[in-house]
């Protein structure tokens, strides 16, 4: 591979880094060392891959969406079925990887933040499987929107700590998780759920999610013949973990055009939006430098999206770099468009997608007319929509 980021200091171009209080520096150094040695250790990787196979249910299928393809009548559409992962979304790939690392480092107490609740459920699941304590920070507004996931986490034995500060969503849950972490550095491992945070998290999360892209590459060749690459890759981006997971193994394949779809909320030109890459400016939040929604005084603005998992004013630093280097195209999708995406996939393919995933589906409306017969589109179906039924029924 010629793409070789991040740098040793954790930079993707001018984005990334370790903008954290001194207390966290020794912790991040310890984590970085442990991760490097684990990732090089065949036994560790085998444990990780065995669990993904035996427990998560990998490899997930690459499903030919024949009716959806016919509907547009152009390129052939495949869905990478992360919705079929145990717990219903790609988040578990990373949670399993990080909990194995936590165990290797001898950390007995796990904390996590969650927005939609998928990462919280994945972490609570992994903690139950390994018998370790789990505390999940979640904004009270998200707890309201994602009640089902709160109950799932509790049933799995996790303690869900409600976060009342700020916008009461993912950003504030992350603040609280970091406050817990700086207070309990000795015994606590913080499982970050997206490709955000200080180095080495964005790299680590990406590498625990790259299995999505690695499988896609292999499966597409099995289905379409040796040497076949997708012409288009589509994924939704909030923090950006499912997107970087499917993009990363294809970054050096120049013919593969990649699209990251972010949440525009009511519109990228309104103040009810989470379209960080479209309208954000560089800044520092949660330990790394990336695009951010903030006002001219540098105060973080509240993001809005109907999808709790994309309702975040930041974005992983690698996506900031991939946008600036023009390797990936990022586009905003509104709440309304996403809801159309939910209906489309449900009606044509019998798959109810997560509201997050629906942002990628909605972009087909724009992309497909530009494609040609014989081309291949792979869309990362990052999660299933059961958790969103309340929001969806209310909207309809």
């Amino acid at each position, binding site marked *: 591979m010629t793409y070789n980021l991040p740098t040793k200091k954790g930079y993707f171009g001018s984005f990334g*880094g370790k*903008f954290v*209080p*001194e*207390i966290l520096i020794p912790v991040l150094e310890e984590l970085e060392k442990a991760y490097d040695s684990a990732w090089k250790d065949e036994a560790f990787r085998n444990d990780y891959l065995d669990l993904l196979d035996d427990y998560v249910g990998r490899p997930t299928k690459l499903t030919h969406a024949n009716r959806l393809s016919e509907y547009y009548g152009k390129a052939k559409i495949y869905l990478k079925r992360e919705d079929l992962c145990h717990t219903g979304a790609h988040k578990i790939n990373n949670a399993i990887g990080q909990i194995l690392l936590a165990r290797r480092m001898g950390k007995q107490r796990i904390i996590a933040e969650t927005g939609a609740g998928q990462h919280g459920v994945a972490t609570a699941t992994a903690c139950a499987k390994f018998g370790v304590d789990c505390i999940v920070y979640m904004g009270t507004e998200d707890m309201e929107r994602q009640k089902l996931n709160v109950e799932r986490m509790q049933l799995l034995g996790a303690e869900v700590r409600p976060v009342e500060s700020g916008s009461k969503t993912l950003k504030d849950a*992350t603040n609280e998780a970091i*406050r817990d972490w700086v207070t309990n550095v000795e015994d606590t491992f913080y499982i970050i759920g997206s490709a955000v945070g200080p180095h080495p998290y964005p790299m680590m999360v990406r590498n625990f999610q790259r299995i999505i892209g690695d499988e896609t590459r292999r499966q597409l060749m099995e289905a379409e013949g040796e040497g076949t690459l997708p012409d288009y890759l589509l994924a939704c981006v909030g923090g950006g973990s499912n997107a970087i997971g499917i993009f990363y193994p294809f970054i050096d394949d120049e013919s593969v055009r990649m699209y990251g779809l972010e949440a525009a909320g009511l519109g990228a030109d309104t103040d009810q939006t989470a379209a960080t890459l479209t309208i954000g400016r560089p800044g520092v939040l949660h330990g790394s430098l990336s695009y*951010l929604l903030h006002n001219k*005084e*540098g105060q973080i603005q509240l993001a809005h999206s109907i999808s709790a998992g994309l309702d975040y004013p930041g974005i992983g630093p690698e996506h900031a770099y991939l946008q600036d280097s023009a390797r990936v195209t990022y586009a905003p999708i509104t709440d309304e468009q996403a809801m159309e995406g939910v209906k489309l996939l449900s009606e044509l393919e019998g798959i109810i997608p997560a509201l997050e995933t629906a942002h990628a589906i909605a972009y087909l409306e724009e992309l497909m007319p530009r494609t040609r017969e014989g081309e291949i589109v792979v869309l990362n179906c990052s999660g299933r929509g059961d958790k969103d039924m309340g929001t969806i029924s209310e909207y309809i």
Partner: protein
Amino acid sequence: MVKKNTQQNRINRLFKQHADSPEKIMSLFLTAGYPDPESTVDLILGFEEHGTDLVELGMPFSDPLADGPTIQYSSNVAIEQGITMSKIFTMVRQVRERSDIPIILMGYINPVLRFGIDAFCEEAAAAGVDGLIIPDIPLEESGIMADKAAEQGLPLVYLVAPNTPDERMRKIDALSEGFVYCVSVTGVTGAREGEEVAQSVQRFIDRVKQNVTRNPKMVGFGIKSHEDARRIAADMDGFIVGSALIDTIRESYPREGWKDEVFAFVHSLKYG
């Protein structure tokens, strides 16, 4: 790069003057604009009158992830009342018309970054700011503003924490200007019970003494009384109080005579 002469800096002068004095230097942290923007200048001048040697003026940020509930609260109040970076510079200028007390601006990097590193350092220096503490700029990221701050004669104060290894403490001492901020306990800012602080802190203080030899040493986090300060700062050049001060303001504001109550607390912190 033209490096301004920092010997004349008010912080350096303060520590020089106190070098042979047994009295501890007291630094107070106040969120700019808390409890209201009109009071900040008066509070700083009153602090000085009641024994404060140094002021850390907090630049409020919407997401203060290293701070406990007290400073989260004061930051929110200040932001809601429309505090901006320009208003903070104006406050410093107003203090400077009447006082020579050293003022350090303290806050997270994002508002500084958004203002523009160059413009920020230039305006801060011009307003009469004496130094900067940016807790989410560790050594690793110092490149983002170290040169510009030095060019403007603004010492950048770095922090050491209980889990900072010896060798790293020495590196921080080599890079830090003005003093080294010693965080006495792991965790977020906030007043703690005296015992909790006392028990864990001595081993850390001993390591600081061994490794921080170039700079003066100020200790903070969790100090809420003169007794705490005396015990924890015994081997330090001075101590820093933030959350306990803001809690006191929060309890008394806007009662008649609230400032006098706050100043009485400040006096008691310094003199017992």
